[in-house]
């Protein structure tokens, strides 16, 4: 499964656990904090991805980047995983 699919799957699971209702048709331009996930949900998404992928790119990068859109979020993970490999 590619990283975007993993993130989408995790996003759905976390939204249910966090009691958040996601907006329809999340695409690369969807603003993260308007996706229906609140800050706690977003924190849970990062934590769950760390559990599953053993990586938290936001704590590991030298210059912290705070992604605004879903596309930017996926790109951060893609880049971080490629550096690890």
């Amino acid at each position: 499964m590619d990283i975007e699919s993993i993130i989408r799957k995790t996003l759905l699971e976390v939204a249910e656990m966090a009691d958040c209702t996601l907006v329809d048709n999340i695409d690369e331009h969807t603003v993260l904090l308007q996706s229906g996930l609140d800050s706690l949900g977003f924190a849970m998404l990062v934590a769950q991805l760390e559990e599953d992928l053993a990586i938290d790119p936001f704590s590991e990068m030298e210059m912290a980047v705070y992604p605004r859109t879903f596309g930017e979020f996926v790109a951060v993970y893609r880049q971080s995983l490629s550096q690890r490999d």
Partner: protein
Amino acid sequence: MRWLSDLSKIKNHASCAIIDVSSCSHTQVHFSYSDLHKRALHLRASYPHLYNQCIAISARRLSDFVSALFAFEGHCAAIYLLPKNGLSDKTRSNKSIAAGHPKQENNLVHETYNLPEYAQLFIPERADTQTLKSRQAMQNEGLNQQSTSKVSLDTQFYLATSGTSGKAKWIGHNTDSLTKAIKLKPQLTDLRWALCYEPSRFAGLQVVLQSMLSGASLLDCSEGDFETRANRMLLHKVNAISCTPSFWRQLLMQKSSESLELQHITLGGEIADHAILRALSHRCPEAKLMHIYASTELGVGFAVSDKQAGFPDKWLSEGVNGHFLKIDAQNHLRIKPNIALDKALAPLIDENGYYDTGDLVSHIKNRVIFLGRASGLINVGGAKVSPEEVEHVLLASPLVQQAKVYGKANSVLGQLVAADIVLKQPLEVSTSEAKQSLLTLSQNNLARHKIPRIIHFVSAIDANDSGKIMRHRAADETAGKPCVIENSETNHE
């Protein structure tokens, strides 16, 4: 009268002091320093019977809060600061308890907030405006003289500590201890502050006092989603913000925050980590950037402005801002402050006058780095969680033999609640069913931020000789990781 007098001395009396924002209608109302000064004078003149009395203020609007604060500082013997949304609509609308009525009519409020029975509830928006109008019409110039004729008192302000449950614990401060860290330079009048904290808390009160006493402007951003707040900041050209690292991270995710021309950046309420300091420094290279170590109990300890996490270890030998610092045998930071602490804190002060902050620290090279709270208290984006409270809920499950709850470092909210669980054997359900069962139990019994978001099933949990869970391990485990935040009850404001 001191703060009220200071308010009248703001040079540009017509300049905007406060921008109130209604969370319902999003309407915005501007108040000049002249407006605030008049309102405070009228309040004081309308309630002469509150002189030398104890009151508890709860104001929904920032302008009301500030007016009452400045009206009664030096006038009342003691002021308890209640949260702005801490009273029900029914209580607020009850005319009989609008101002200055003692406990018998306010039992519920007094019990909820652990207020002394002699404290009189004061709700500024229900203040007697008819009295104000008549006094305004009658007295005009005479008002000022009348309201200042009494001897100014050394008002005690009581602020609630950021506890996790149960009744509020109140810590007393006087005017001097609250304003010790306030800067009054002429160039600070140009700052336009955003208030992102609850104003009745120590961190919020510091922002209110810094902006008001220095003649700057203050925009209420204490409510609303991040997009709304970021847009509001941009609209009003905010150039000074004090908020938690978690708040900053989410603010930086907003497009509109890129256009803010910030001059003054302050972090507090949680440990400021390397990553957020670097990001803010990169985004606003010209801004004055500092993270502040403070707490309701201690007041403002110190500000670190070298854009690095922790603080320089030379402060352990030289002190800072008149405070003396040391690390005790348990690796707790101890501070001998330059102010008198509330008497209730005496058990935490050693024979040499050093107060046990309860913050675990590590001395690494030339820095002292914060690791978290010795008590294991978890800080989820500024909201505190007692591990014992969560463990109590988990242990109620028939599936659970042992539970250890701790803070797991998280790059969004600083920490999330995590739990190690020893399941009872033989297990009659699958581990995924057990996990779901514990989540459901938690959802039914805990606030959202207290629910364990990471659950690990383990074979054993470390305990000390007396059988107590070894809580320090959680902080120790995260200590080695750079660029992460650990927990702290203390406000690193």
